[in-house]
């Protein structure tokens, strides 16, 4: 890959890494799967870099690829496992957590579970919204109209609030 392209890629990734990872988290069943999915996303973005034309912002473009990869990969588990044989050596690091952090993580886990229960379209729209992307960008990424996005977000948020507050 051309040096300039590589620099652009790494800079864009530096800015968006956490956002992309969070999007991946709602399409994966466990941390290992999330790790694999994230790797798949990175490789796809990396490979697609030469075709980036700058019609939209690079972060919008990256989110689009991330969503496409997440949707595609969830139906193609076997191929993905084979592909990532190479990075088997990677393990999830367990960082020590304090009480407050643990509680926060429980809530995050619950939120992710609630999002995972949504259908593909709702899931895609709400993850982008939670990343605080403007409606216009969400509309560009998903191909839905801005109005449709706004209505969908309102509905899904209500659903999520109900889901996250409901007792088990």
């Amino acid at each position, binding site marked *: 890959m051309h040096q300039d392209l590589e620099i652009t890629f790494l800079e864009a990734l530096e800015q968006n890494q956490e956002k992309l990872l969070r999007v991946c988290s709602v399409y994966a069943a466990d941390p290992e799967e999330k790790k694999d999915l994230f790797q798949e996303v990175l490789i796809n973005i990396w490979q697609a870099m030469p075709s980036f034309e700058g019609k939209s912002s690079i972060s919008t473009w990256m989110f689009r690829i991330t969503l496409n990869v997440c949707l595609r990969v969830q139906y193609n588990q076997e191929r993905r496992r084979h592909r990532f044989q190479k990075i088997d050596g990677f393990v999830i690091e367990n960082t020590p957590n304090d009480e407050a952090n643990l509680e926060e993580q429980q*809530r995050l886990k619950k939120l992710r579970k609630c999002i995972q229960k949504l259908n593909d379209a709702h899931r895609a729209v709400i993850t982008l919204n939670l990343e605080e992307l403007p409606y216009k960008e969400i509309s560009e990424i998903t191909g839905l109209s801005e109005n449709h996005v706004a209505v969908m977000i309102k509905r899904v948020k209500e659903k999520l609030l109900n889901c996250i507050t409901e007792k088990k």
Partner: protein
Amino acid sequence: MIEDELTRIWKSSPNQERVKFRKSRLMLELQSSLDRFHRAIRNRDLIETIAAIVVVPIFACCAFVIPYTLTKIASVLIGVWAVYVIVHLRKARSHKPGSFTTSYQEYLYKTRDYLIVQKKLLDTILYWYLLPGFILMLLFLGGFAGIPEKHDHLVRTAVGAFVLGVLVYYINRRAARKHIAPRLEKVNELISVVEQTSTFDA
């Protein structure tokens, strides 16, 4: 619960996720760097192989046509040396790690070994490539020493070969320093990140 709360919870990812990305980034940087390196090595080996394929028949003809014993011996030895160079390069290249190995950690270890082999190859180029080549060239030219009118030409050729040899030596030392050493550093950095993570997990 207000709606902003959803966004706040959503963004409260644990630290481990950031550590993992550091690895991914290092991996991608390294892979891109290694891809370029592998391409350069492949091109170098290809050029050397073509050169040897050209050199062997030319010097085989010289051994036949030129009547001077010293030149005949040198021609045969240059052919042998050309083949040795190919074998030496191929041997070094055989350490190249495959794309799919048992684990990424294993892949990194193999990559490190491969880079060390390639660096050693360039560091020792004087002994397996330049000196034998230069000595054989002198031997080849020595065959013509009995023709006084060729002396000037022979000296000029020998000096030219020496200057070229010095240039090749410095280019290769520079390549080892500028292209292999930083990659080796990157691989070691990634190995230490992977090993550290494995230790944490254990």
